């Protein structure tokens, strides 16, 4: 490892690490449904590195955005100026998403379980919660219709990686099947956290630990997970962000530090 790379990598923040790892996972993907924040950074970086053909579809209806500045919201005016298309909500959710045109959807959640089911509604009881969260937005539709779903979780704790969700807002395909409905997509296939990467192949599969960041042990990840976490036969170590990835992320993708912290 070169001296410069060591120096740069030593200063990597959690946002940068998650964005770089998520970007690498987008290799070979074409259409990505992404919200603002880390998914946007990941998709933009992937566009400059492993997936030049990638097209980000925003929940606001923008397809093929060419923003002059990094958008601050999914509805930032800079996404519209110069975009290839702007669709109505009915077209976006009905024809694009439900019509099966999205390869990867990015989602976040307050809680995730071993099957990749997500809670974004409440902590506590739904009727009188201790914390009322924003709810689904389009997450239910993304999970039901995207070919696969990547989840980025900033915090990896037993409360957020829960044995049992307080409420299942967004069900994965296993819950859909149990409800008598055949799911279209494979549900969550990657969970990217500050500790490592969990993966899942499809219906009937639990999330399993496949990679850890340098310096993180398998035991640490197990302890931070609220269920008995399955571990892959071979757990790899995530390659730290390279100097080139970090330079692109910091200088080209988010020079104004809208999301990078």
């Amino acid at each position: 490892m070169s001296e410069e790379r060591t120096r740069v990598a030593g200063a990597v923040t959690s946002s940068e690490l998650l964005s770089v790892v998520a970007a690498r996972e987008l290799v070979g993907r074409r259409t990505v449904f992404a919200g603002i924040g880390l998914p946007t950074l990941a998709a933009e970086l992937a566009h400059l590195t492993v997936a030049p053909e990638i097209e980000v579809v925003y929940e606001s209806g923008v397809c093929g955005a060419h923003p002059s500045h990094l958008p601050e919201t999914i509805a930032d005016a800079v996404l519209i100026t110069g975009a290839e298309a702007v669709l109505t909500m009915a077209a976006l959710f009905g024809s694009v998403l439900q019509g099966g045109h999205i390869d990867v959807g990015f989602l976040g959640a307050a809680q995730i379980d071993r099957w990749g089911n997500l809670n974004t509604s409440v902590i506590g009881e739904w009727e009188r919660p201790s914390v009322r969260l924003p709810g689904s937005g389009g997450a239910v539709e993304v999970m039901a219709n995207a070919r696969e779903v990547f989840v980025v979780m900033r915090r990896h704790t037993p409360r957020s990686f829960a044995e049992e969700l307080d409420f299942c807002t967004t069900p994965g395909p296993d819950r859909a099947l149990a409800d008598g409905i055949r799911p279209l997509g494979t549900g969550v296939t990657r969970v990217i956290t500050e500790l490592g990467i969990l993966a899942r192949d499809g219906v009937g599969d639990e999330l399993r630990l496949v990679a850890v960041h340098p310096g993180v042990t398998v035991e640490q990840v197990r302890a931070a997970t609220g269920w008995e976490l399955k571990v892959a036969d071979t757990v790899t170590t995530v390659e730290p962000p390279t100097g080139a990835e970090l330079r692109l992320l910091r200088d080209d993708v988010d020079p104004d530090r809208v999301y990078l912290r």
Partner: protein
Amino acid sequence: MRSSVDRTAAGKVMSMREAVASFVHDGDTVSLEGFTHLIPTAAGHEIIRQGRRDLTVVRMTADIVVDQMLAAGCVTRLVSSFVGNSSAGSLGELRRRIEHADPEPLAYEEYSHYGMVCRYLAGAQRLPFYPLRSYAGSDLPSVNPGIRKVTSPYPAADGTAEQIHVVPPVNPDVTFIHAQRADHRGNTQIWGLTGIQAEAVYAAEKAVVVVEELVADEVVRADPNRTLVPAHAVDAVVVCPRGAHPSFAQGYYDRDNAFYRAWSAISKDPVRLREWLEEWVYGTADHAAYVAKLGEGFWAGLAVGEALSGQVDYGRRL
């Protein structure tokens, strides 16, 4: 050639005060739509000023204007698919109402975005329900009896019976949308993010269109594809420049991101929130006063550059 006679009811252009007084009644179901762009904030503020009570508010992304209407005591029931302050934080009043029934309970009907879209589609088309491939395995149907599951009358590709979730229509008593421009009869043109506005208007019994600019018939007719809502669906046209603040109007003014960030702190403190309402809503006679109070220096900070559309040729045979 047909001359441009006024074929619809005259006198649609009115003040926001008149529109709210005429079309919003205590106990009504009121839809305010605009998906992060063109949010009809000024309409919400006038509903607050006129002290409407017991409203059911229908809005996909219940954000700042809904939090303000909740704090003003206008709303007893909310129908929505996202209850948050964009990506900038929480809605303090909404959370107090739901988490602590403080100062009173709020009935909440929780959907997902496409569930709400389908409710508007069913409402606009006067259908009994609308099917969607969402909710299979979700806990949402267990807390929202509006979300139901039916068996398709047609067999699936493999010959088996197929089940699918459905949502009911929503038919608001009145829908408010904000738009860039309309003519005096209500032909409404929107560009940029067009969201769910057209469906929300057609779903409603009455529709009020709030615009940045009233334009001549010729302006609309030079570009008919840009008309998202035709005059026949519109009952009132309100001219209200900058009426979507703190959201934005593409080509007119930018989003006030600083206010979105500030709202999380303002709304977290119920006293501060009510002081804000006193100063900025009850303390302003109308939206023009609110705009003036913010000051031209403030608006200069939200100014946008120019990016004109190209032109298309609507030419016909000679």
